[in-house]
């Protein structure tokens, strides 16, 4: 049975400036929801509110009909990839995977040309792209219903971007995924539903022309 995540009536302001006004977002198992928006439009804020680590003036979060205040505190409901690396620097790759996925899954998880040579490498010694790839792959392999990815393609080489997109597509069979990135081409490429945060509200996007109309991309970018 597919799972359903809903966030409703989100109101958030910073120092009197309204960032999100009465937002509603829905995500089901199988959805890859691409969340677009200009810098400072509130994409990361919305994801953090949804995850439960940022408070809001008003919000209602429901997962499968059950209301949550801080969904992250309930194991196996929701995972979040922040913009910056979050893995502790003192651990090595294998130990990190062991903690997150358990000993039994290490072999299968590490059977990957990128990760197999990094088994004993410390997190602090990984390159930015390797680190991002490891974080995303781990989060998508955790047994949870929804994954929020904040700028997953940032600082990642094209080869790894391709691999990340493949994993996202594969794991979306079992999870609902919400992702946001300024590399909108990759978002448009991998997501199956799109929304734009504009002026504190949310707009459903059906085609590239709508992105131009809302002033997210210049007309010259449409091919």
């Amino acid at each position, binding site marked *: 049975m597919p799972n359903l995540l809903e966030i409703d009536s989100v109101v958030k302001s910073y120092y009197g400036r309204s960032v999100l006004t009465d937002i509603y977002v829905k995500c089901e198992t199988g959805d890859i929801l691409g969340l677009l928006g200009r810098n400072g439009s509130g994409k990361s804020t919305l994801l953090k509110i949804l995850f439960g680590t940022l408070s809001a003036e008003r919000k209602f979060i429901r997962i499968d009909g059950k209301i949550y205040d801080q969904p*992250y505190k309930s194991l196996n409901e929701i*995972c979040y990839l922040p913009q*910056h690396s*979050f893995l*502790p*620097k003192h651990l090595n790759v294998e130990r990190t995977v062991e*903690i997150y996925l358990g000993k039994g899954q290490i072999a299968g998880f590490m059977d990957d040309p990128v990760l197999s040579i990094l088994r004993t490498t410390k997190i602090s010694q990984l390159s930015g792209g390797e680190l991002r790839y490891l974080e995303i792959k781990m989060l998508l392999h955790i047994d949870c219903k929804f994954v929020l990815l904040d700028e997953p393609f940032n600082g990642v080489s094209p080869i790894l971007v391709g691999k990340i997109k493949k994993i996202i597509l594969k794991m979306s069979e079992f999870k609902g995924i919400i992702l946001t990135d300024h590399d909108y081409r990759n978002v448009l490429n991998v997501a199956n539903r799109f929304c734009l945060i504009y002026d504190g509200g949310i707009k459903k996007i059906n085609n590239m022309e709508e992105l131009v109309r809302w002033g997210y991309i210049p007309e010259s970018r449409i091919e």
Partner: protein
Amino acid sequence: MVRLTLYWEFFKSTLVFNLASSVLLAIIIYMALKIMPDPPPPIQVVYIKCCMFGGPILCFLYNEMSRKEEYYFYFNRGVSKISLIVVTLSTYVITGYLLINILRYAKLA
């Protein structure tokens, strides 16, 4: 079990910083206590007390300023920041209390 492992990993991540910063803190406090009229407690007791309170608090402040994102490692497995801090601080306080009593019993302090 996963949560226990996470608490342990967080505790370990604070250990080096705590032990090192407590050395400095203990020296400063010991010097300050020496100028007081009452004789100061042995320096090893001052050091352990620093490891119980001052060191961990400095470490949490350091985490808050420069390693804030690492908390998401624990959040993603359902462990909150407040529970990490409470468990870690409790571990230091209990261990420190036991160590001070062992030292007293062995008449080393």
